[in-house]
């Protein structure tokens, strides 16, 4: 590691400039804009007032979208954990020659377009989709079950998008555990299950919590799955922002909702970082 006063700064300056002008300033701008007044015609009026926030919390409609977003995010986290821990553990323990191939397969969805992965569930859950087709063929049901355009369908889309993140986070953590620790535990009389419960599971918790945070944050900002797989009652906060900005061109109100969303995520990420440290998350993305 070299110490140099100016070289690293010269190397960093293009990236820092880009992030500063294209992310930091625009995001600050959203916060500033959330206090402005909407002009019925022409440009919005600079002001410092809390009307947009008051409007958000005025009745139950807007907060209920926020609550739904958090609830769906928690459901996604729980399902990702249930579906992701065992495959991650499988990767950790397997001695199969197929392991590299299986690892590539789990990363493959990262390379497949998000919109294609989302809409692909229509082919499975739709009225003439795979499940209904098979059930009707088998004579189990007479008419197709409505499985699309509800929260379960949204969860399917979300899970398919986020499960690889969870699996990789847990795997990175498991992979760092010295296998001789479990061997020591079993040779000292632990059963396999006890060794897992007392040694492996606690040591894998950093990856588990990093995966949970990442899945939660990414779900809270999600737009496509509720849009494509959800019904009118499944909108999440990102859908609301989109509707207010692109639909009704209400920039100040849209900015206020965006500020509430980043404020919420900011508090969660800050608290997490304070107690657990955020760097674990980036490990799995390499």
């Amino acid at each position: 590691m070299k110490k140099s006063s100016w070289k690293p700064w010269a190397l960093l300056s293009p990236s820092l400039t880009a992030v500063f002008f294209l992310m930091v300033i625009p995001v600050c701008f959203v916060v500033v804009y959330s206090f402005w007044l909407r002009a019925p015609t022409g440009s919005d009026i600079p002001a410092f007032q809390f009307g947009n926030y008051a409007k958000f919390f005025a009745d139950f409609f807007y907060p209920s979208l926020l609550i739904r977003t958090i609830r769906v995010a928690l459901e996604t986290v729980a399902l990702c954990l249930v579906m992701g821990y065992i495959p991650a553990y499988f990767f950790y323990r397997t001695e199969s020659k197929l392991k590299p191939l299986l690892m590539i397969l789990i990363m493959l969805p990262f390379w497949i377009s998000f919109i294609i992965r989302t809409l692909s569930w229509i082919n499975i859950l739709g009225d003439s989709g795979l499940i209904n087709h098979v059930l009707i063929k088998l004579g189990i049901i007479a008419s197709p079950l409505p499985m699309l355009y509800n929260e379960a369908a949204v969860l399917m889309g979300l899970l398919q998008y986020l499960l690889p993140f969870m699996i990789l986070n847990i795997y990175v953590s498991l992979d760092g555990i010295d296998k001789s620790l479990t061997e020591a535990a079993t040779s000292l009389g632990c059963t396999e299950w006890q060794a897992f419960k007392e040694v492996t599971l606690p040591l894998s918790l950093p990856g588990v919590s990093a995966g949970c945070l990442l899945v939660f944050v990414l779900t809270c900002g999600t737009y496509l799955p509720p849009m494509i797989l959800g019904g009118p009652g499944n909108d999440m906060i990102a859908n609301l922002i989109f509707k207010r900005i692109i639909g009704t061109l209400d920039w100040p109100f849209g900015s206020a909702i965006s500020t509430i969303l980043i404020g919420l995520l900011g508090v969660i990420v800050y608290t997490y970082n304070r107690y657990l440290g955020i760097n674990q998350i980036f490990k799995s993305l390499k």
Partner: protein
Amino acid sequence: MKFFSGWSLIRTYTLLVYIWMFTPIVAVVLLSFNPQQFGSFPMEGFSLKWYIRLAHNATILGAFKNSLVLGSLTAILVTAIGIPAALAFVRYDFPGKETLNTLLLAPIMIPEVVLGVALLLFIRWLQQPKSFALLLIGHVVLTLPYVLLVVQARLVGIKREYEEAALSLGANPFQTFREITLPLLAPAVFAGMLFAFTISFDDVTATLFWATARNQTVPVKIFGMLRNSISPEINALGAVMIVLTVSLPLVAGYVLRKFARGAGK
């Protein structure tokens, strides 16, 4: 040794997760060959009808061109600014390093919707119209953190000793860069560009905010087509996208390995 009694259960469970994950993707590819009018089961034969129709659809071809140009330019720009930054983090010690690294990775944690709104609002305040340039700079911000992560991971493996050896053997700094650093850096640059291209090529949410009717990308186009209903044409387009974005890293990996073997002689 597998002394875990539930090992076969774990294996079955993992297999089921794989099946769950890939069935929808396989269905897209399969249904794209279905000649039936509606993109749904049952399969009624095998036909390339929808691909042929796709190849004659001028707006989709236009969107493809937009996506390719945008993805390529994003890849070039973002590696041009990302590689030096990654070098700074891997090679140097300086005050505030951790904070800056977190700042540059921050766009991953900020919802795309918010990034989309923010940049659009900023551009509006500057009284600039939506344009291709907006899409390009937006995609650079979106892809920069991923490129930084991937490239930093590759750079850690390149030892400084190689360069020092070249310098001590009489090469000047430029020769050292050209003969030693650059070839060693090439795989990292390549991986970064590939990653940036794929992310840019696939992005929907933020792009929906930034795109105009004239510079729509393929995913934005698909999003528009979905308004009507899922047609076999969408499945065909999806299959093309899957093959393209999945084969790209595989082919690139193969080429890189050949390249590395050639360089190792």
